[in-house]
């Protein structure tokens, strides 16, 4: 089990006149084995935070430590075994000309793991896809099927920390239930640590212990999950977002 500590993280993105300070100065801590939620305004920088932690973006300032070790001190190989990410846009994260087999096999080869066929089949089974899908290409899959391949790829290396960017928003709620049950179960059995981005506060309530509310690149408040029901948020934006979500959830 590993913790995550993000300290004074900042990054500017864009080119020329269009450069913008997307994350001015951000800090938060995730305990080992915790599921930590990131919620907030669309465009506020949630995916950017995850892309910094996964080193998909490298030119940030500040410090990110995994289990007490600074991320930049880990070798590439160790980092991949430690941190995996499920992307918000499954289409973009899968190579269009790579079959599902190639997608799942690649990390197994790089990390020299044995029993490859068995591991691939198990990973597909866990996300509820038939083994025959190993020979499909991304364009032959529905949106939700692509997302499940992306989840299978992240799980196959059994990482300590999973960064989940809207992992279930492209799935129908019955498949979502299966994936959330799987993720909860993995956390219990293997002690995974999660950072979960979601716009669905019911999912956040189900999965997370604590969550941070983001607006325009800043964390405006970190709250316990109980804040969703006992109205204890204090920042105006956090209050607005939570009450709108509760109304949205109850209006039925």
């Amino acid at each position: 089990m590993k913790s995550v500590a993000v300290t004074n993280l900042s990054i500017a993105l864009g080119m020329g006149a269009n450069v913008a300070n997307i994350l001015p100065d951000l800090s938060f801590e995730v305990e080992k084995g915790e599921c930590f939620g990131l919620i907030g305004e669309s465009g506020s920088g949630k995916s950017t935070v995850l892309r910094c932690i996964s080193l998909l973006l490298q030119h940030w300032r500040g410090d990110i430590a995994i289990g007490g070790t600074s991320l930049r001190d880990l070798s590439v190989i160790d980092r991949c075994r430690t941190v995996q990410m499920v992307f918000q846009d499954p289409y973009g994260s899968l190579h269009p000309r790579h079959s599902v087999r190639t997608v799942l096999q690649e990390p197994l080869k790089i990390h020299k793991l044995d029993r490859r066929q068995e591991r691939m089949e198990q990973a597909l089974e866990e996300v509820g896809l038939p083994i025959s899908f190993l020979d499909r290409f991304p364009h032959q899959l529905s949106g939700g099927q692509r997302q499940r391949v992306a989840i299978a790829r992240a799980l196959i290396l059994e990482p300590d920390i999973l960064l989940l960017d809207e992992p279930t928003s492209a799935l129908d709620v019955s498949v979502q239930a299966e994936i959330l049950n799987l993720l909860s179960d993995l956390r219990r059995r293997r002690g995974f640590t999660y950072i979960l981005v979601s716009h669905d506060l019911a999912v956040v309530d189900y999965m997370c212990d604590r969550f941070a509310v983001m607006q325009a690149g800043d964390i405006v408040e970190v709250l316990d999950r109980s804040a969703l029901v006992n109205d204890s948020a204090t920042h105006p934006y956090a209050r607005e977002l939570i009450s709108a979500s509760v109304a949205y959830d109850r209006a039925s």
Partner: protein
Amino acid sequence: MIAPTGPILNVKKLNVSYRTETGYTDAVRNVSFTLGREKLGIVGESGSGKSTVGRALMRLLPSARITAERMDFEGTPLLALKEKQMLDIRGRRMSMILQDPKFSLNPIRRVGDQVAESYLIHFKCSKAEARAKAMSMLEAVQIRDPERVYNLYPHEVSGGMGQRIMIAMMLLTDPDLVIADEPTSALDVTVRLQVLNILDTLVSERGIGLIMISHDLNLVRNFCDRVLIMYAGQVVESLKASELGKAQHPYTLGLLAAQPRIGGSRAPLSVLDRQAAWETPLEAVQ
């Protein structure tokens, strides 16, 4: 233009099969529905054929076999049209917001220019006017700093910005029919409600028809007029949106039970016990 009466869409026994190495596989079977000036939701299992229905209506499936007893848009049989005639309809009189917005945009052109372009293609005006139109639409869909976002490339926008850029593009061309495939899944609830309001106004004031493909049961229940439920390529149930709670089909019941709730239990979520019988052909549901 829109005939004052009659449905916008009339679909009877639509079937779609994809070509694969091993022959054709069915993705949509015997789907029938009509659409008036209303909001029709389509929910259903991942992979059940919802996007395929939308793309078949737009004739965006070059490698698939599409057949239907009827697939009429404002009285025009879509399957009989030549691709050249389809070009006048697609993107102008009927518009689709695709499920993966960032990847349906051209990766090497600025998103704002692409929005402006979609206006220029169908309407006579100067580049500057198109640019101003595009900018005002980005604002209308609640993008925080439209000037900056106008100049970004698709990979530089957030998930929810991509969805709103597609919506802005669609709004500019002023269509009669909009097929929106998961248009708001990456939006926070506050922005989502504002965007839904814009779509709602199009239906109530301009009288367009809207098909809303979504996994969000709250959205479908509260925003749509009617809902089709799809499973394994078929429509297994058709309901008034407000009566979603009175659904009968075991798939729909399973969906409703699988939804987590704020303040709900943390026991394992209820999952479906999928039955092979749900896949057997049905008589077309009206």
